[in-house]
Each structure stands twice: as C-alpha cells, then as structure tokens.
C-alpha cells in the first residue's frame, strides 16, 4: 500500500466577500511510495505549493481524499493536524524559516523538543545530522550568522533529525546559487537513500527535476505527466 494516496483531490480558493473562485487543484489522483524522491514541477500557479500544503497537513482539500500512512487527512481536526505534522512531516521552506533566536543546534533540536524527546538524545541526533550536512563547526551560530546555503542546510537538518515519514521541500533551491543548490539536492538525495525518508520537492529548478527519481508535472491544478 502506497504511503500517500490521493484520490480526486480538489482545492478551490474563494476570495472573501466575492464570488470569484480559483481552482488550485483539480481532481488530482496520485500515489507516492515510501522512500521516493519525488519532484513536483510546473509553472507558477500550477498548484505545486497547494499540493504540498495539503500533503503537509497545513491546508484542507475542498473535496477528494488524502490518506497518508493510514491517516485520512480530509477528516482531521486542526489539533490532529498539528500532531500529524509534528510526528510525520518535516518541512524545508523556500526562505529557510529558521527560528532566529535559536542557534543552529537548537533549531535542529526544535522539532524533537516538541516531540518530548529527552535532551541528551535530541542533542546527539541534532549534532550528528548537522555534522552530516557539514555544519559541525557552526552549531552555536545563530541564523543571521550563517550564509543562505548554511541556513538551508540547518533547515534540512531540522527536518530530517526527528526522522519523519515525509520531508516536504518547497522550492528549496530558489534562493540559493546553483552550486549551493546542487550541493543541497545531493545532500537530500543522500539522506533519502541512507535514511529511507520520503522526499517531495516542489520546484522550478531543472537541476532538481533532473536529480529526482520521479517527476510529476502540474499545470493548472492538474497532473499532466
């Protein structure tokens, strides 16, 4: 059974005090297996981020069904959404989105802290993963003391350290130069292969598409290939 099962998923955005409706996703059917390294490609407005948000339990679909690891996201409460995100999903955002008041090590520890993992264990895991992403010597640096590439590596470490089921990365290379971007994608691939964590990346970047094991093309909210 696939890790992610999406059936007839539709998302329509309605503007407040207006009858104007925008269909962001239109009857999507998709299955993603455990351990896949999948890129979702498509032009701006094609629905990549919306799809990622729904898979990441950040948003509800308007209709259709989404089941992840036997959890039916379509019928979950907000509270259950938060719990699901905490234990099953890792996020890597386009703008890194680290917590500015925490050091690299504390950022990498943050999700594990929310999961109530004991201090010793989470510190060990965070240090190990930060070493794996090449930041062993920057553990006590705050985000504003790190370069863009380093910040994104901390974001990846934060996402991977608690070993979630799925890591969702929204345009992870968009704010990076091509060399740093390539290095990060290689790093994600390596972690995917080593730790068997499922990666789903929304991207414009041809380099990311080329590295993905599976490529899903979206256009106007529909899967075209």
């Amino acid at each position: 059974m696939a890790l992610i099962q999406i059936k007839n998923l539709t998302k329509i955005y309605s503007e407040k005090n207006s009858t104007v409706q925008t269909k962001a996703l239109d009857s999507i059917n998709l299955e993603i297996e455990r351990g896949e390294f999948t890129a979702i490609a498509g032009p701006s407005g094609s629905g990549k981020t919306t799809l990622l948000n729904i898979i990441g339990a950040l948003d509800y679909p308007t209709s259709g069904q989404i089941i992840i690891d036997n959890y039916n996201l379509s019928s979950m409460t907000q509270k259950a959404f938060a719990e699901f995100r905490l234990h099953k999903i890792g996020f890597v955002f386009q703008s890194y989105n680290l917590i500015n008041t925490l050091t690299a090590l504390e950022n990498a520890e943050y999700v594990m802290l929310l999961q109530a993992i004991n201090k010793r264990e989470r510190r060990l895991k965070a240090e190990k993963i930060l070493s794996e992403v090449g930041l062993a010597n920057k553990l006590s640096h705050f985000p504003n003391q790190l370069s863009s590439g380093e910040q994104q590596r901390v974001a990846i470490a934060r996402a991977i350290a608690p070993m979630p089921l799925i890591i969702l990365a929204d345009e992870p290379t968009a704010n990076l130069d091509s060399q740093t971007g390539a290095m990060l994608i290689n790093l994600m691939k390596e972690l995917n292969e080593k730790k068997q964590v499922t990666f789903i990346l929304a991207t414009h970047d041809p380099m990311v598409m080329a590295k993905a094991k599976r490529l899903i093309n979206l256009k106007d909210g529909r899967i075209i290939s």
Partner: protein
Amino acid sequence: MRTFILIAFRNILRNKYRSAITISAIAFGLFALIFLKGFIDGADYQMINNYTDLLIGHIQIHAKGFQKSIGLEKTIAGANNLIEKISKNRKIIAHSKRIKDFALISSPENSYGVLLLGIDPEEEKKVSSFHKRIRKGFYLNPQDKNKIIIGKDLAENLKVALEDKVVIMSQAADGSLATAAFEVCGIIDTGAEEIDKNLAVITLSDAQELLTLEDKVSEIVLKISSLKEVDKLTLTLRGQLDTNLFEVLNWKDISPMTYQWLKFDQIFTSLILFIFLIVVASGILNTILMAVLERTREFGIMLALGTKKNQIMFMVAAESFILALTAALIGSIAAILTVNYFGQRGIDLSKFSKALDSFYIGSVIYTRLEWGGFFISLIVVFLTSIVTSLLPAYKAANLKPIEAIRHI
C-alpha cells in the same frame, strides 16, 4: 517549557530597542502611578495633620452636648483627674485643656464677634502647631497676664497692631458681664480664613478668671501616636468615660465636611488612577501587540512545525512576564527613591500656596509612600502587563500557519 522561556528571553534581547521602549512604558507607568499616589497621599496626610494640628487635635473630650452648643454652661470640672485617668493609654502622647467661648472683641475702631480660646501655652504647644503660626509678635507665656493673640485678618479689621489694646466682652459663667482689656502680643497667620478672621487666644488662667470658671475647662484636646488609631481610641475612651456626662469626639466627628471631602478626594483620586491605568495598559497592549505582529511569520513556522497553541501562548506570555518583571523592578525602585526624596525635600508649590493653605495642605507637599498603595499599584500594573499580553498571545497562537508563513 525551558526552551520557550529561552526563546522569549532571546526575543527580548534580539529587539533591544523595542524591549527598551516596552520596559520604559511599563516602568514609567508604574513610576507615575506610585508617584501620583504618593503625592496625593502626602497632600491628604498633610491636610489631615495640618487640620488636626492647627487647632482641632485628634480627639476632644467635652461635657456632653458642648459641641452642639458651645458655651459656659457645659464645662468639665476636675479636668486633671480625668486626664490622669485616660493618659495611662500609651497611644495618647499629649493633651491640652482649653476654655472655648464666643465673645465680642473691640478696638477703638471696630467690634467683632470672635471665638475666644483660653489655652495653657505649654500644653498647647504639644497638641497643636498654633504657636508656629505667629507671624508678628510672640506666643503666650504661662505667666502672661492680659495678653492676647489674634488672627491677621481680625487685626486688620480691628485696625490694631502689636502692643495695641483690645477689649474682650462676654457673659461670665456666673451670669455677670465679663470684660477686660488685653494687649495684642502676637498676630497669627494660618492661611485659613475662618481662623485668621475669627480667633482670639488668651491664657487659660486669664480665661478662667475672666469667665469666673475657677478650674473648669471647656475641652480636653488629645494628640495620639497615629492618625490610624483615631477611630479605635475614640471607642476605647467612650468605653472608659461616662457618656452621660462626657462626649468623646474625634476630628471626623468634629468636622464631618472635611472628612467627607477627603473621602470624595480619595474616590476621585482612585478614578484618576484608574483612567491612568487604562492609558498605561493600552500602551503596554500596543507595544506587545506590535511585537507579536512583527513575528507573525515566525509563529507561523513554529505552528507549522507542530508547536502547540498553548506553547505559543506561554512563550508570548513569558516574554511579557520578563518585560513586566524588569519594568516593575525599575519602576518601583525609581518610584521609591523619588517619593522618599520628595518626602524629605518636599515639592514647593508656593505659587498656589494661598489656595493650598486654605485647604490646610500647605505650600510644600511632602510625598508619602504608603506600602499598601504601593503594592496595589505594583500588582495592578504587573498583572495588567501580563493580562494585556494574553490578547496578542491568543492571536499569535490562533494564526493559521499557512497564512502566517506567507506574512512578510
């Protein structure tokens, strides 16, 4: 929770400028509240003290019915025995015997009705500040014969100066006409018109002789160790003395208008302080709300990562708690130092002295720190800071992560 306290603490340090503004706003609000309260308490305390010190005293003992109808029919015989009986109470620190009667005072130019007071000059010094109000001439000596002190306005009306003669006329206790000439030895200026215009003071022995009272007196005035003890001691004395023969009245009974005015003043002050508190609270709310709005995106990320609503609320509240605690410390220390400083030095409001004197406050206000009021202000401002932070905290906790992350 340690991490959230750490984040809260680092957030405060991260935005030093904003934190300094918030701390200053709360600290200044608290400072102003305590100082204002200290000023008003000082003025009220002075007013009661000056009012009671000037003539009334804290407690007066009369023959029953004297206060309603001042005259020589109701006098106290054996005043010394009575004083001996009550002065065992340690709260009574001084007493003075007086004769009080209405009389006519005449100069070659004019005649006026006055309140004639016969005092024991030495005893009187201990219960009232009357002797400190002599502006011209001298205070009475126990040995003085036929010397009189009159109010400044009365002297002007009579057109008399020091060493001039005035004649006092009244009805003596035996029904005869009491009349004697007195030399003006002192002129008082209290700032209170009803005293400066209507008071004439002679020695107790002169008064007893003039009014044929032998050793009888009209009233015994008591000064006690603390104004706060007035009500309790009044009741004690009423229990000690035969209330069929004597009346024991404290300053509130003697001057209910002044007491009511003070009560009104306290309510009015509380209202002003409450309005001031609302202004302070809106300032605090505004700064904390701004601080939360500024970090909408960060809260969005935290929520997206799985941070619970109560954890976000705790973090924002912890930040406010640290800010409020720091501000409370700074504000209260500054307020204690300032109130104590002006408590020693006083605030000179001599430009308004005429008006203030007529209210018995005096032209120099000595601020006064009442610890009860201080702690109430401290707790109220502190709790207001925490409570007002709950709204922004609630807002932050209920953000939709997907929208908050997009927030720039």
